[in-house]
């Protein structure tokens, strides 16, 4: 038993630095051991887990990509049969989008946003733990199903009628649909946490115009998630119902409609692209500012561009359905809006270029990835404007041109910034530096490998090679390029392998990182690397957009917080004026139980609708266990 001090409600102002660190550690630490690991609600531990898991899924998806490239390297190859190939491209797309790209961006935010806004934990930290377990369960569901030959085989957007009860017998399509539920629940949970953290937990003085651009980008992204993901939840639920209990949402014979699926899917699916891309934009802005040693040119323009992109993202979904035969006027509208979205994107590129022009760029690995991003993304954007025109899209629809286009956008627009971001924040997260030499090699291999792999796919597409085919005849003029692409994919894979080696090696034995190795100006660098469980011993007070650059010797902080309970500050939305001291929930095992109970319900409900009735009982019990006060100082004011 810890003997409590005489003083009721001990405040940090009464303690010197050493005592303060000791008391805060007592209050905020995660106990060691398995139980501690399972019940932690520390956003840094959960964020790290999220990041590791997402990168494991990246590696798995990459292995599938290599398998496809092996099969396509020569005509009439016999490595993979048609059924397995269908599963593989579906798994690759689904895995990359739902288990890697979206979660990894949210994962970075889970780790970084609380630090960057200067608070001690994310809002609703138990929900955060729950969201990770749900994500993990969804990923395991998909991959275990694939391992036992029940992986979905209907493409990553699972169009009906192919995925409906008539054409997709067995449980493969249900696995896909229910994996959606898992990942969307976890994504929505994180989105809510980020929104509330950003709106209400910013350091005193961090008014809206002092929010770091990465945090802005995550705020907009979170709103996109909140508004877009319900559409796919409704769609996938309707699909499961059609398949399980005989509803007719997508059955034209009984008044349903197959295009309804496409509308619902793409109403989510297009914003999904920006859910992946906007965080990357935030990462790029951060890296550009740090490595040019000056704030990004046009802060207001950058924020407006983020918000505009977010709004426009909802007006574009129909461009995925141009060949479905829609009214002419509708198509023109969606062409116009698809082209309009190039404007905010272009604006941001110009702001970055202006920043680099005016600054003194330091070409470290993170910055190299940013440059790679710009080159690749501009190419992807140009082919994007091309396919936004209906006649052109009609030609290249469902060919490798589209495969090339969206890999330029997704890999160029998201994976490059992400890798840069990993090199950039690695010292903060692990307390160690990655290797600059290996970093340059990694960048070189990935950049070269990527372009050699994907650029020729444009040509293949123009030559008429359809996507999603497991093989082709030797008479087709495609074999030379395919072999070239497959060999280039090996270079690309070597680059990723080197990245993983560097990351693992550096995490174990890289040189120790100082608090602020890059001389950056945002708050996450104002604490130790890696940060202590409570992030900041005294919460920072912010007076400018770049709190660390104005006077880098001392940090303005606030005093008067309690150290006996997990405490942080709630501030007002616009000006970030302090409103209350607030407790932050402590560790709890109940989020794990809740996630397990929900997992049972969701998987069971693939087989019988009664699972929803009976399965909701353990879910309710777990949720009550979660919310019932335990008499801790955090529960009782």
């Amino acid at each position, binding site marked *: 038993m810890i003997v409590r001090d005489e003083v009721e409600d001990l*405040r940090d*102002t009464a303690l010197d630095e050493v005592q303060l660190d000791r008391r805060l550690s007592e209050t905020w630490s995660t106990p060691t051991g398995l139980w501690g690991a399972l019940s932690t609600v520390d956003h840094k531990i959960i964020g790290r887990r999220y990041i590791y898991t997402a990168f494991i899924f990246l590696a798995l998806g990459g292995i599938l990509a290599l398998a496809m490239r092996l099969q396509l390297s020569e005509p009439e190859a016999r490595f993979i049969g048609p059924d397995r190939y269908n599963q593989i491209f579906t798994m690759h797309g689904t895995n990359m989008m739902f288990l890697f790209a979206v979660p990894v961006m949210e994962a970075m935010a889970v780790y970084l946003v609380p630090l960057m806004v200067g608070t001690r934990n994310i*809002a*609703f930290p138990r929900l955060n733990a729950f969201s990770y377990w749900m994500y993990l369960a969804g990923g395991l569901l998909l991959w275990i199903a694939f391992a036992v030959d029940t992986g979905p085989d209907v493409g990553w957007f699972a169009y009906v009628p192919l995925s409906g009860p008539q054409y997709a017998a067995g449980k493969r399509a249900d696995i896909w649909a229910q994996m959606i539920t898992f990942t969307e629940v976890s994504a929505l949970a994180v989105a*809510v946490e980020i*929104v*509330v953290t950003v*709106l*209400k*937990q910013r350091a*005193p003085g961090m008014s809206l115009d002092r929010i770091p651009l990465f945090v802005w980008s995550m705020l907009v992204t979170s709103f996109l998630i*909140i*508004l877009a993901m*319900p*559409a796919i939840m*409704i769609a996938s639920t*309707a699909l499961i*119902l*059609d398949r399980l*209990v*005989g*509803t*007719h*949402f997508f*059955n034209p014979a*009984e*008044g*349903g*409609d197959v295009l*309804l699926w496409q*509308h*619902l899917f793409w109403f989510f699916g297009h914003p999904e692209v920006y859910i992946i891309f906007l965080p990357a934009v935030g990462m790029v802005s951060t890296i550009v500012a740090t490595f040019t040693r000056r704030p990004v040119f046009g802060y207001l323009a950058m924020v407006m561009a983020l918000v505009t992109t977010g709004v426009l993202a909802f007006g574009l979904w129909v461009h995925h359905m141009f060949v479905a035969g829609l009214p002419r006027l509708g198509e023109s509208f969606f062409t116009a809006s698809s082209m309009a979205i190039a404007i905010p994107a272009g604006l941001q590129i110009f702001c970055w270029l202006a920043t680099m022009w005016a600054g003194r760029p330091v070409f470290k690995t993170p910055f190299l990835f940013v440059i790679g991003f710009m080159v690749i993304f501009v190419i992807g954007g140009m082919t994007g404007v091309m396919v936004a025109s209906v006649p052109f899209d009609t030609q290249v629809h469902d060919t490798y041109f589209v495969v090339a286009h969206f890999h330029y956008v997704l890999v160029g627009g998201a994976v490059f910034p992400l890798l840069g971001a990993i090199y950039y924040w690695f010292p903060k997260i692990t307390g160690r530096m990655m290797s600059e030499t290996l970093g340059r090699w990694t960048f070189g291999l990935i950049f070269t490998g990527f372009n050699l792999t994907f650029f020729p796919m444009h040509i293949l597409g123009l030559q008429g090679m359809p996507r999603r085919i497991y093989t082709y005849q030797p008479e087709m003029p495609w074999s030379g390029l395919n072999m070239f692409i497959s060999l280039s994919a090996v270079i690309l894979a070597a680059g990723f392998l080197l990245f993983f080696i560097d990351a693992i090696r550096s995490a174990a034995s890289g040189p120790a990182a100082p*608090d602020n190795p890059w001389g950056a100006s945002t708050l996450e660098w104002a604490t130790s690397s890696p940060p202590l469980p409570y992030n900041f*011993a*005294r919460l920072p*007070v912010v007076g400018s957009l770049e709190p660390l650059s104005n006077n880098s010797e*001392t*940090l*303005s*902080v*606030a*005093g*008067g*917080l309690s150290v006996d309970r997990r405490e942080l*500050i*709630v501030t*007002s939305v616009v000006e970030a004026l*302090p*409103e*209350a*001291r*607030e*407790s932050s929930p402590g560790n709890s095992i109940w989020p794990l139980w809740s996630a397990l109970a929900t997992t049972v319900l969701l998987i069971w409900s693939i087989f019988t609708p009664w699972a929803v009735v009976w399965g909701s009982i353990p879910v309710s019990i777990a949720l*009550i266990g979660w919310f*019932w*006060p335990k*008499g801790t100082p955090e*529960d*009782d*004011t």
Partner: protein
Amino acid sequence: MNRSVVLDLSKLPPHGLGTASLTWWGTLAFMLIEGTGFALSIVVYLYLMSLAPHWPLDAPPPDLLPGSGLTALLIVSLLPNMLIARWARQQNLAKVRIGLVIMSLLGVAPLFLRVLEFPAMHISWDQNAYGSIVWVMLGLHTTHILTDLVETLVLTCLMFSKHGDNPRRYGDVSDNAMYWNFVVATWLPMYVCLYWIPRL
């Protein structure tokens, strides 16, 4: 890095109420998510209707009685709901307890009418797309009534326990009241959609 204390927060309240409460904002965000879901279900209804040669498909318009009764009941429930929010603000334990018991009953009562609403549609979910969407809309809203009911029951138990008399719990009570307003408010467009659009 040196730290200089420039701001004293020791006088701040130890718990935020209303817009200074994190759960208030969290509840709002979840309402935005679910509100989007409700709105989309209405859009799907209208979309299917726009495709159909006649509407409702192969069924008479639904009987008005159970649905209208439920709507009336939900609207009436807003009054005690408003009161309980006020009592929670005043941190009046005795009244909050009474209010929660009443709100629990008012959470159970609509379920009886809801059970009658499904047959009043005169169509089953597996007959055609019209049946599918009306069942899903009713089902979606029912889960929200159930969720709020469970939450209210748990809160009732809490307020009768030793954990009850605490500003944090009063905050929970008023957030729960806000959520019930949402459950009622989202029902109104669904009611118009389900019962009156087929009569146009």
